[in-house]
């Protein structure tokens, strides 16, 4: 089909009037359609989402103490308005001579996910949609290939004998790709090694999420939802204050706790002591000792991110396989079984309900 642009029209008052009316209806219709298209904006709550105060708020590093005080006051007001609790919001700065390192003992982790939910509670993470900073991966024994892991294991009990468990969270890299890619410097590495995010500066481009090799970053796809009763009132500007929608967040080693000497919530909740945290610049700290005495490894070392999160194993040689222990047990009258050793008849260990010798 051929359409030729036909520009000729005859002029005349009547035609002009009609054409005016015609144009008028078209313009009116168009405006109505435009207004209808924009109508979802009526659900916007500008008083909650935007304010001049927030709009002119400076970047974290440019804020004067007064600016910061104003920002903290505003956050306090907002939390009070929304969650009906009065929080204590602070701006915690890194301490000199401190560089934080995390170490995780894979031989001890049993995959109970207590760290995951302790973190959620401590850091005011959104409950619906669910945001969690820690992922515990159930790995089959004999491999470290993450693609073989299962993030969604549900078992009556853990640990499962055929698997080991590998929690992953932000590795606080010394060469963080997420910081490199941020177009607005909303995320940066502080002097104590923690990579932080200014939630009031992030524009939500999610480039950092694409750049992170550890899948550590989470985006607030909608407004986060936290039950009022579950709000943790101990808040930090760069850490666990409630986040707005449309910004990125991640693990920050609980900096509102750790920068005043306390331990991260995930560590405190760990039932087995698999998690170790401390100052790597102190040669006697637990983490320094681990780096010195254990064989540690980091995830995806080949990507050059230099994580401050180390994994190690300290599995002992299983007793059941120890030939010397076997000789001793046999000489004492123990009988070997599928599950371990049974004490000899008449042994009080039997009488008090004891049984097998643990591996």
């Amino acid at each position, binding site marked *: 089909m051929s359409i030729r642009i036909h520009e000729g029209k005859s002029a005349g008052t009547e035609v002009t009037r009609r054409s005016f009316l015609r144009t008028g209806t078209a313009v009116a219709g168009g405006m109505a359609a435009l207004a209808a298209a924009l109508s979802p904006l009526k659900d916007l709550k500008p008083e909650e989402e935007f304010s001049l105060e927030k709009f002119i708020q400076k970047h974290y590093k440019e804020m004067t103490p007064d600016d910061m005080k104003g920002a903290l006051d505003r956050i306090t007001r907002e939390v009070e308005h929304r969650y009906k609790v009065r929080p204590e919001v602070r701006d915690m700065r890194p301490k000199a001579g401190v560089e934080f390192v995390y170490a995780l003992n894979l031989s001890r982790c049993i995959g109970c996910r207590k760290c995951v939910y302790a973190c959620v509670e401590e850091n005011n993470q959104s409950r619906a949609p669910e945001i969690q900073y820690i992922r515990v991966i159930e790995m089959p024994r004999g491999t470290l290939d993450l693609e073989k892991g299962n993030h969604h294991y549900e078992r009556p009990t853990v640990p499962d004998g055929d698997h080991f468990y590998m929690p992953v969270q932000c590795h606080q890299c010394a060469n963080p790709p997420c910081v490199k890619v941020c177009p607005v410097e909303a995320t940066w590495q502080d002097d104590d090694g923690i990579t932080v995010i200014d939630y009031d500066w992030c524009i939500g481009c999610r480039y950092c999420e694409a750049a992170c090799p550890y899948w550590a970053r989470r985006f607030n796809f909608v407004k986060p939802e936290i039950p009022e009763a579950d709000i943790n009132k101990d808040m930090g500007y760069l850490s666990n204050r409630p986040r707005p929608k449309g910004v990125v967040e991640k693990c920050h080693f609980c900096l509102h706790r750790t920068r005043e000497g306390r331990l991260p919530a995930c560590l405190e909740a760990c039932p087995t002591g698999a998690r170790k945290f401390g100052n790597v610049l102190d040669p006697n700290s637990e983490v320094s000792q681990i780096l010195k005495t254990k064989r540690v490894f980091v995830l995806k070392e080949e990507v050059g991110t230099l994580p401050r999160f180390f994994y190690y194993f300290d599995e002992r040689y299983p007793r059941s396989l120890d030939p010397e222990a076997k000789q001793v047990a046999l000489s004492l009258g123990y009988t070997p079984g599928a599950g371990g050793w049974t004490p000899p008849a008449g*042994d009080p260990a039997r009488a008090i309900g004891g049984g097998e010798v643990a591996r």
Partner: protein
Amino acid sequence: MSGAGRTSLVLWLIGPAFLGVAAYLALVAPPATIPIGEMKIIPSDAVKGGAWRQAKVDARGVVAGSDRPCSECHKLFTTPPGENKALVQHKDIVMNHGMNTRCLNCHDGDDRDKLVLHDGTTVSFADTPRLCSQCHGTVYRDWQLGTHGKTLGSWDAKDEKHRRLTCNECHEPHSPAYKPMKPLPAPTTLRMGDQSMPKEHHGKESPLRRRSASPHEGGPEHGEPAEPSQDKTPMEPGQPAEKGGGK
């Protein structure tokens, strides 16, 4: 119809058509939907920080309704070493400590308020690491360095709140291996619900195989919603110990 007439007709129709679009957008257009997922309620107790168990630091026990030191009863009830007798009291104790099955290996036969080392030295109940270190030397050294065990209070050893838990604040001395426990619910990530197709691997995983085709035997697959009954149950730390429970 002439070109001009057709143009005019189209122009007349544009206005009402726009109005139609406006009506559609204002009245008919479906609202945007967002999958959110259900909110999991995890009781705070389940994730409370602190020592895993309450250690016995003083040699006392509640017998017949009154709290008294161990020695008070054991003045009467003594057990000569080496004699194999079934227990009458303390039947709640589950003994699962390897070949270490004799009470008096650790408890002092003469002073029941004390524990005893191999050389006969007695130590208090609060000083268990010294006792345990006799057999568990490597773990003890790790514990001394801080590479084994749990520290609470502060990461800074110079801080007065810094406290390294002792052996029996995590391990029950009579049955030191960790018991298997119920894990807290699996994550439900935004939009994971759409991922309904079964994930084929995770069969009997072989470390030498990149991808395996047999279906997984245990636990829901990626994307399937967790069983609701498991979602809200608080975890309890305790089925009977099985082999390999705590490594």
